[in-house]
């Protein structure tokens, strides 16, 4: 290379080696705007440079898959000419800096990813992780994030139907806000981002461009130091009202045949949307920067290309359709501007005042994006801990009340009552149970959906933890009676330049892949968020799974609450009393130690298939998956969810077996692949289970008002319910 100019002092987050590659591609020193474009396109957020090698190993195919990873969202066939389109995405760093706006724009971004593809969004979910409740920032962050998630979803009118909220000190300086949207489209009306064809108009629609969030994508790819509070100006502000108009305008235009390609302007804004469209369509794009609608004066090309202003879309139209499209957007009071044209140059060219101000060849910008095989070390295996190694108190009821009345397992009602979970009039199973179930509008079928991850398992053994995240999401969707179709994943980790963190990523991707394969539930979309560290202290590895399933007849769905007294309670699946990494262990010892519960994927599948068949046959009256806190907690949750009858008593349970293993292990062990179900036809359950070769043990009966577990005193369900409902509102009010 002949370039002798000194390299810029600020490489905008690029490494020296990456800068050398840019010099090779350009054959000259890139100007400031060009360097900015390389910087965002090659950021971890846009290029997946640390994770790509491993993501490629995930199963992404199946007869139900219409579009796997690589587009704005994944597309899955749900029959009858309809498709479910969904994806999960993180907005972690912005939410830590400004929780309301960070969370709100996270929801806005993922909604756009889904409606860009032609789907009407029908449900939002989320996975939220906060620091220790004792940390001084936690209360403020919980309040702001929940209000932001609700503020955006409620206003745009898409129900927020499910999610998770967890606390752990490892998130003190790096909270996680992962938002998922599920939409429905016709299989013959799905829109992609490839701008195939030259001489086509490139159209900008939506809000005007301001200086919001410049270099947001690179912020998402850097560790926080203590000056995180100084980063406030880069946070974007969401406008759900404009997004609602944009949604309706896009769907109206999509009903015509005007659109060749469409791409939302998310991270790295106009840069990544135009580069994606050009690259996928194998064309060049020329953009006239002066024609971009601007909210502020004196913006440079660099600022316009890197702005992350929200509620914007880039489209390529068939020539001659501009006026018709413009009319639709003007009706919805949105900006509409033809800002460029496709050509056969293969370059992204920017014009300013008629002069070319940036000129980058697209294929190497995309193809030469760095891909690292970062060094990694496997997580050392941990010993298996026998239940008898952990103490048991005289009355296990004390542990139960402590767990369900504490931050881990208390009711999340305070959260989901701030989300409109019923708008659109199709929410059949509301938040608070296993999976949410949303009817496909105008039909009798439905989509079940859930998000899951148990970071303490992943930390202990990334492979088992990765399998468990997929298995639990699959199990939750199964527990309402639906057939899981596919998953989306959000890989949240610390700094991948540390081999032990990279080892967590590699292991959990391996585990996820194995589970997806065994459960026929491929990965169709996803997002990676790395560098979730503050001053060298990383988060627990948190590979969140969002699973979507289909159910032919929502009237057959089963919910988790006990329905009537006098029904038989069964445990489906094998109970060994695994207490390693359990909540019981942490409660009793203050520590999470040993190996996490293993996931037997073959049993997982057999058990789930049995449960689904029993639900389809109408044999079950209630079903709940067994997860954190084991059987005791699962049974208690089913009792607490039951409605007080006319006479005022909830439905409890009397568990009348003597476990053949340590009672505390039986009650609180977190063995995988299990469900608690109730039935008024116990013989049918036993017969079906025997035929399927699945362990199904009758453990007791539903009774009025009280809950009695082995080695516990009878506890009033009303009392448990009050305890379970109290923690979160009390915590939030104490601020």
């Amino acid at each position, binding site marked *: 290379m002949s370039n002798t100019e000194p390299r810029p002092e600020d490489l905008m987050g690029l490494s020296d080696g990456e800068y050398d590659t840019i010099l090779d591609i350009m054959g000259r020193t890139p100007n400031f705007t060009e360097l900015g474009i390389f910087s965002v396109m090659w950021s971890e957020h846009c290029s997946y440079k640390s994770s790509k090698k491993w993501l490629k190993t995930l199963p992404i195919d199946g007869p139900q898959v219409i579009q796997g990873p690589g587009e704005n969202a994944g597309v899955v066939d749900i029959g009858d000419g309809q498709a479910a389109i969904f994806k999960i995405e993180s907005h972690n760093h912005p939410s830590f800096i400004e929780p309301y706006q960070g969370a709100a724009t996270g929801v806005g971004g993922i909604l756009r990813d889904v409606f860009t593809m032609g789907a009407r969004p029908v449900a939002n979910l989320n996975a939220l992780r906060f620091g220790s409740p004792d940390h001084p920032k936690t209360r403020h962050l919980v309040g702001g994030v929940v209000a932001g998630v609700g503020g955006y979803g*409620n*206003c745009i*009118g898409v129900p927020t139907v499910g999610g998770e909220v967890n606390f752990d000190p490892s998130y003190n300086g790096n909270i996680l806000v992962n938002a998922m949207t599920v939409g429905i489209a016709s299989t013959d009306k799905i829109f992609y981002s490839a701008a195939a064809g030259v001489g086509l108009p490139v159209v900008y629609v939506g809000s005007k461009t301001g200086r919001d969030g410049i270099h947001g994508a690179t912020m998402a790819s850097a560790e926080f130091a203590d000056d995180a509070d100084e980063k406030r100006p880069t946070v974007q502000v969401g406008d759900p009202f404009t997004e*609602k108009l944009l949604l309706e305008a896009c769907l109206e235009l999509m009903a015509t045949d005007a659109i060749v390609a469409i791409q939302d302007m998310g991270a790295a804004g106009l840069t990544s949307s135009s580069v994606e469209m050009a690259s996928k369509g194998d064309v060049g794009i020329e953009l006239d920067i002066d024609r971009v609608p601007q909210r502020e004066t004196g913006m440079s090309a660099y600022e316009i290309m890197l702005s992350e202003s929200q509620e914007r879309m880039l489209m390529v139209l068939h020539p001659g359709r501009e006026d018709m499209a413009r009319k639709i957007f003007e009706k919805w009071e949105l900006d509409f501007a033809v800002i460029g044209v496709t050509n056969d140059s293969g370059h992204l060219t920017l014009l300013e005042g008629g002069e070319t101000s940036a000129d980058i060849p697209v294929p190497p910008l995309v193809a030469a994006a760095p891909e690292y095989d970062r060094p990694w070390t496997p997580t050392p295996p941990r010993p298996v801990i026998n239940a008898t190694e952990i103490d048991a108190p005289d009355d296990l009821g004390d542990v139960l009340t402590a767990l369900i009345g504490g931050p881990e397992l208390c009711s999340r009602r305070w959260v989901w009552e701030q989300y409109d979970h019923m*708008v659109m009039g199709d929410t059949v199973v509301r938040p608070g149970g296993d999976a949410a179930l949303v009817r496909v509008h105008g039909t009798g079928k439905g989509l079940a959906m859930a998000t899951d991850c148990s970071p303490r398992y992943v930390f202990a053994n990334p492979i088992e933890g990765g399998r468990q995240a997929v298995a639990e999401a699959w199990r939750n969707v199964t527990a309402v009676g639906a057939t899981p179709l596919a998953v989306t994943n959000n890989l949240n980790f610390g700094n991948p330049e540390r081999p032990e963190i990279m080892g967590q990523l590699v292991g959990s991707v391996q585990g996820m892949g194995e589970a997806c394969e065994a459960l026929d539930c491929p990965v169709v979309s996803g997002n990676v968020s790395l560098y979730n560290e503050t001053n060298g202290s990383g988060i627990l590895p948190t590979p969140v799974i969002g699973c979507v399933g289909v159910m032919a007849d929502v009237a057959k769905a089963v919910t988790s609450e006990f329905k009537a007294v006098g029904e038989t309670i069964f445990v489906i699946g094998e109970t060994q009393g695994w207490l390693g990494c359990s909540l019981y262990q942490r409660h009793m010892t203050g520590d999470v130690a040993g190996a996490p519960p293993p996931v037997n994927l073959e049993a997982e599948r057999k058990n789930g298939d049995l449960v689904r068949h029993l639900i389809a046959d109408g044999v079950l009256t209630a079903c709940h998956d067994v997860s954190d806190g084991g059987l005791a907690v699962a049974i208690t949750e089913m009792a607490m969810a039951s409605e007080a009858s006319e006479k005022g008593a909830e439905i409890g349970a009397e568990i009348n077996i003597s476990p053949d293993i340590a009672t505390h292990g039986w009650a609180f062990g977190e063995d995988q692949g299990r469900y608690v179900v109730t039935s008024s036809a116990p013989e049918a359950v036993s017969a079906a289970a025997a035929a399927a070769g699945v362990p199904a043990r009758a453990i007791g009966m539903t009774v009025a008002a009280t809950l009695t577990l082995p080695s516990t005193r009878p506890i009033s369900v009303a009392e448990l319910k009050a305890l379970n409902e109290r923690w979160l509102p009390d915590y939030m009010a104490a601020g």
Partner: protein
Amino acid sequence: MPAAVIVFPGSNCDRDVAVALEAASGRPPAMVWHQESALPPSDLIVVPGGFSYGDYLRSGAMAAHSPIMRAVTARANAGTPVLGICNGFQILAEAGLLPGILMRNASLKFVCRDVDLRVERADTVFTSAYTQGEVLRVPVAHHDGNYFADPDTLQRLQDGGQIAFRYCDAGGNVTAAANPNGSIENIAGIVNAAGNVLGMMPHPERLADPLLGGTDGAPMFTALAEAIAA
């Protein structure tokens, strides 16, 4: 004649209420865009829930000045039944068709859950399928549902029997604990003096289908369908 549902930019319960109206009456309502200046012939006008104009400035304030609202006001004054649900109630209050105003919830938080309502007036076109004192379960979903009126107005509402629904417990007792938003006198819905305009914060259209968890909202639409078919 079909019902008319007014659609503002940011309305998001327009489809939900159209589904409930069609289920009750057998025919879809006319959806009327806010920039229209005239209403189609209809014997019932519904102003649906949502976030018209993003609820910026004040909930319902900008929608209340949309072109179509002049026509709605004229028809309301001429006696056509007008039902405003949630944001629709806010719009009708801002438009002066109903007294008082809906302020930020006392909790300052958005609230979405089922609530119990006591029917205070069963002799309006909207509530004729219920009995006075009956307790209904329907959801609320709002950030600004805290009904406020000055003491004189409140007195007039009480004297004139204009309070249509109050928040109550499952037994029908009007208690502070049963009030989800701080509304004065637990007011959940009111009618105008003539009784042909109803504004209510709860969403009867959301529990009018057994698959969604209840049907207590359905009789309102059945009664309206019968009234406008007659």
